[in-house]
């Protein structure tokens, strides 16, 4: 009994220690709209409304470990970091009459690129941009899916109908309300088959719904949607932000996907990939293009470096040249301490101190830090 009490004493001593040791509170900012974020807010956390989170990210956009964390902490708190702020400031000051500017976020695995992109997306959403957002390209290209068909409209290209339909759902979830507001319509007739046509003047929402319902035409629908949006943007009807995470997966050498006739397809042979690549071209204005290259998106083929030229190759480089590269570095000391303060505040990190060790072990990469603090 006494031994038990002694151990309980350990537990209560830990609690007592808590009262002696002040649990820190993370530095936060009250500004919920990324439009208001400025350089003074760097390294601080800001929370996103749960409603906004579900509007933008319900069908994809936040990394899975992060969403689990938000469930646990009962809030979605993003850290405001320099790369995202740079892009946002640049977006604020672009001349949208000029062709769309390309930004490329790059960095080591786990340095916070996807979350920076999420921050920028939130900004774009608040600023009434249409979000043409591909959450993570390798999801399209991984696995040996069964439903890969040869495209009927484009020769020598393959379709993945269900994935395209899924993406269209994602698009409509993010942009449905905005599209209704803007009341954008198709500029011409689209004939799907003998009996199915989408006449000129149908709203884009209806077009997308058609694509979702008829998965067979979903890929073509995606392509048409993109062209329509580009046209509308060029006509100053709306603003669009193209955001692609895992961009370098477009330039992978192979995929595991096979058509019904057991023919392996390369990424360049897939219609959706070509749509994505054309989204990145600067033949439209009133918008911006943000790409994120990630070593993980190379799917274990390219391990030597995290630099974009290595990941997308010469071909990719020429495709997106010119662009503005934005490096997403490791956390700075202030950011690092603030992140640990946040974990301690949320009672996730149970053992205070040992920050030097965590700094050394994770080399201040935020994802590594999250993984390292999980059992501590």
């Amino acid at each position, binding site marked *: 009994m*006494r*031994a*038990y009490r*002694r*151990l*309980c004493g*350990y*537990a*209560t001593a*830990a*609690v007592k220690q808590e009262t002696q040791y002040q649990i820190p509170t993370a530095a936060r900012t009250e500004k919920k709209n990324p439009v208001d974020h400025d350089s003074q807010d760097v390294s601080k956390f800001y929370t996103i409304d749960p409603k906004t989170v579900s509007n933008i990210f319900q069908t994809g956009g936040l990394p899975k470990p992060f969403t689990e964390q938000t469930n*646990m902490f*009962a809030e979605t708190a993003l850290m405001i970091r320099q790369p995202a702020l740079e892009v946002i400031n640049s977006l604020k000051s672009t001349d949208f009459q000029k062709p769309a500017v390309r930004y490329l976020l790059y960095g080591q695995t786990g340095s916070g690129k996807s979350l920076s992109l999420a921050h920028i997306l939130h900004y774009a959403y608040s600023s009434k941009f249409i979000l043409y957002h591909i959450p993570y390209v390798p999801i399209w290209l991984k696995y040996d899916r069964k439903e890969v068909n040869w495209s009927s409209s484009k020769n020598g290209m393959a379709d993945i109908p269900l994935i395209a339909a899924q993406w269209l759902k994602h698009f409509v979830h993010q942009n449905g309300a905005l599209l209704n507001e803007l009341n954008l319509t198709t500029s011409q007739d689209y004939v799907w088959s003998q009996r199915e046509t989408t006449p000129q003047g149908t709203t884009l929402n209806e077009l997308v719904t058609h694509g979702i319902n008829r998965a067979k035409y979903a890929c073509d629908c995606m392509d048409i949607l993109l062209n329509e949006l580009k046209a509308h943007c060029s006509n100053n009807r709306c603003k669009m932000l193209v955001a692609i995470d895992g961009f370098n997966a477009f330039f992978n050498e192979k995929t595991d996907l096979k058509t019904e006739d057991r023919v392996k397809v390369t990424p360049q042979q897939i219609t959706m990939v070509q749509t994505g690549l054309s989204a990145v071209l600067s033949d439209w204005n009133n918008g911006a293009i943000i790409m994120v290259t990630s070593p993980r998106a190379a799917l274990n083929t390219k391990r030597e470096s995290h630099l974009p030229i290595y990941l997308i190759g010469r071909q990719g480089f020429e495709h997106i040249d010119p662009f503005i590269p934005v490096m997403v570095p490791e956390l700075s000391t202030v950011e690092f301490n603030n992140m640990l303060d946040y974990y301690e505040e949320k*009672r*996730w990190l*149970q*053992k205070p*101190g*040992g920050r030097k*060790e965590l700094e050394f072990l994770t080399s201040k990469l935020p994802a590594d830090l999250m993984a390292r603090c*999980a*059992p*501590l």
Partner: protein
Amino acid sequence: MALFAKYLRIGSTVKHGFQAFPQLTTAKYSVYPPHFAEPVYKKQELDKLYESGEIENYKLIPFKAAKSNETCSIFHDPMVAKFINYMLLKGQKKLAREVLEKTFEKIKKLQLEKYNRETDPEKKASMIIDPVVILKKAVANSKPLLKLTAVKRGGSFYQVPVPITDKESTFYAMRWFVQCGREKDKSISFADFMATELIKASNNDGKVVNKKLDLHKQCEANRAYAHYRWS
């Protein structure tokens, strides 16, 4: 049960402090000669030795090399390291460690949920979220006081209750956790199972604590044979 334990003259659990003299372990086969001592790598323990002046004894003795899984970091705990070793199969230390870390993460998740739901400030303050503390409490709650050994008397083996040392007791407790884990339903992951089991054991509940209580009951039932220890 406590009376019975007294009858067998079992001492109270020795607090695991550091030794006054370095532990010279005699291994049956060891690369090190027998006079090499186990290293003391925790800064706090070394500071205590310096304060008390016992460090002079340590200065005269050679020490073995520090093990690959031991560090002076505050995040390293010897009991946790021991538990990982018990979970180990086929030398896959990396996997065992990952599984235990997942277990700790799950414990934290479960406890945090409860913590966030709890409104009473007193209960909230006394709630333990630290998974290492829960592990220690769980092991302490499932340590048996006696064990049964087979003693041959007159041609047949009798199960005789016999006292055990603190070390052996801890070993049994930790091994029961791992054994229950290996007997679990295939649909639940080891980490999930272990997390719930550890939390239950820290509240004096669950399979392992029941195992301990069963053992105590059996010892109580076999107390008539206790004298067979000496015949």
